[in-house]
């Protein structure tokens, strides 16, 4: 527990709070049944789209700013027929997944190492926090200068956005390992490696899952920015160019797809997070 970390962050509490509030939230939300929630959700969303359609058609908002929902759907169909939709979606997904795999492969081991080895912690923690706090987006032009305008730059941007978010959570997760467990393990003669493998690591798994979720959502920002600056394809590129050519139907359509893409990514990781932290929630609250 280095002083440096303590003086910079309020974030350790954040991480712990994050774990606590998931359980609490589930406890507090028992007013509607699952079925009711689902029905209301569907009605709610369809009302939204209906309202959108009505406002777009019957109000004075120019169509350039707000195309009607049916227009957007038509545009999506057209894009799908032209092959623009699936090709670009595929490219974005591919780049995103490669970027995320690289990020996680860097962030998780590095987080475990920095959190677990006290010398590394002392030396590197200030840097980690500094990098975490800075808006890394300002480095964007620098990346273009160093890497060039290509797919590698896109991946670099995703990695830069995602790594610090994941690393910080994993690092703090390691530090929250229950010291009494560690002491017990030590008393029973567990070595450094063994302690790490059978005490620290299992205790950190839920934090890793949280970190992955944070990284995934930051990585999406990186993906979009990368496509805005460097790409000649991908979802972000279509969104940017279609708005420049005043084809807003296409912009909205692609935005819808992008929202679905993001919700799918974040939802998947949240599912993972819930699965992984289940075993941990029980012994603590009991």
């Amino acid at each position, binding site marked *: 527990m280095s002083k*440096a970390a303590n003086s910079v962050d309020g974030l350790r509490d954040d991480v712990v709070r994050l774990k606590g509030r998931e359980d609490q939230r589930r406890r507090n939300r028992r007013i509607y049944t699952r079925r009711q929630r689902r029905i209301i959700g569907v009605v709610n969303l369809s009302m939204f789209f209906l309202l959108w359609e009505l406002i777009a058609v019957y109000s004075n908002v120019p169509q350039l700013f707000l195309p009607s929902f049916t227009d957007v759907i038509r545009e999506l169909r057209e894009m799908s027929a032209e092959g623009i939709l699936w090709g670009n979606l595929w490219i974005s997904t591919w780049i995103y997944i490669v970027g995320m795999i690289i990020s996680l492969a860097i962030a998780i081991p590095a987080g475990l190492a920095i959190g677990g080895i006290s010398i590394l912690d002392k030396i590197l923690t200030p840097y980690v926090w500094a990098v975490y*706090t800075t*808006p890394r987006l300002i480095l964007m032009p620098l990346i273009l200068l160093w890497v060039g305008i290509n797919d590698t730059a896109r991946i670099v941007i995703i990695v830069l956005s995602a790594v610090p978010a994941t690393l910080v959570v994993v690092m703090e997760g390691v530090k929250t390992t229950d010291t009494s467990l560690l002491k017990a393990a030590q008393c029973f003669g567990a070595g450094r490696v063994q302690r790490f493998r059978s005490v620290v690591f299992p205790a950190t798994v839920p934090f890793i899952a949280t970190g992955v979720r944070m990284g995934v959502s930051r990585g999406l920002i990186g993906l979009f920015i990368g496509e805005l600056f460097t790409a000649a394809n991908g979802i972000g590129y279509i969104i940017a160019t279609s708005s420049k050519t005043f084809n*807003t139907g296409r912009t909205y359509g692609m935005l819808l797809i992008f929202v679905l893409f993001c919700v799918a990514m974040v939802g998947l990781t949240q599912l993972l997070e819930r699965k992984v932290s289940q075993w941990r929630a029980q012994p603590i609250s009991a």
Partner: protein
Amino acid sequence: MSDITGPGEHTTRIAPPPSAMHERRKPKRSVWSQRLRDRLPGLLSFAGFIFLWYAMIWIFDPDPILFPTPAAVWDAFIEALQDGTMVPAVTDSMYAMLVGLTLSLVIGIPLGLVIGMSPTADLLTSPYLWGFFAMPRIALAPIIILITGFGMQTKVILVFLSAVIPLMLSCKDGVHTADASLMAAARSFGANKLDLFGRIIVPGTLPFIASGIRNGISRGFVGLLVIELTVGSGGIGTEVMRSMRQFDTARMFAFAGVLIVFAMVLIGISRRLENYASRWREDVVV
């Protein structure tokens, strides 16, 4: 479990620990030396960073266009100060940032609290909040640029949008974690809904609001920079992009450095706020 949150953590930040022994030994300088000692790892790592920078230049000997020396960056900074490009850029960016943040506080906090209080509102808004949260808000930038143009307005709107969603979600979560037993106790002593809100929920939510503000600041910077970097509407990001186009890397580093300093200061302030808001919570959070 109380050692997770580390009870001493916040107090060291707000005031030096009143240890009697310590004060007797150094009656006068204790506050300042304590402060200096708290900052020492940060200062050391900054010195280390500069040293590493020089070392890298000495080892790799890169083209100054790709990687300038710290001295060159400092010169560029002074030059930008003198030729009058630095000050307007900084004030421009900070103005957009502060106005957007203030707006998001004024709108986001009450909305978040209300949504958290009412399960129905929660259910109705959650798909939209969720979609907005998962999707990087900067994806909306092309549409907003289309509607409001390239000016200050666009920047403010994007900062607002980027900051308001994390803030709302944070407030909402805070309300959800309000202690159920406290609520029950208050209710049995005859508190009405307004009392519950003012006496239990708002104080309980303060730390969440504060951490939401911190998140909002860091997200807000992303929104601000995307606009400044892409459309060149003035501000630090635009200057960075302009320097890059002229291959004046030292100037680019100087502007990026200034932005990073400002971000750190803002986030530092919000951390203080957070510590202040959650100082009473230490022993309440399990």
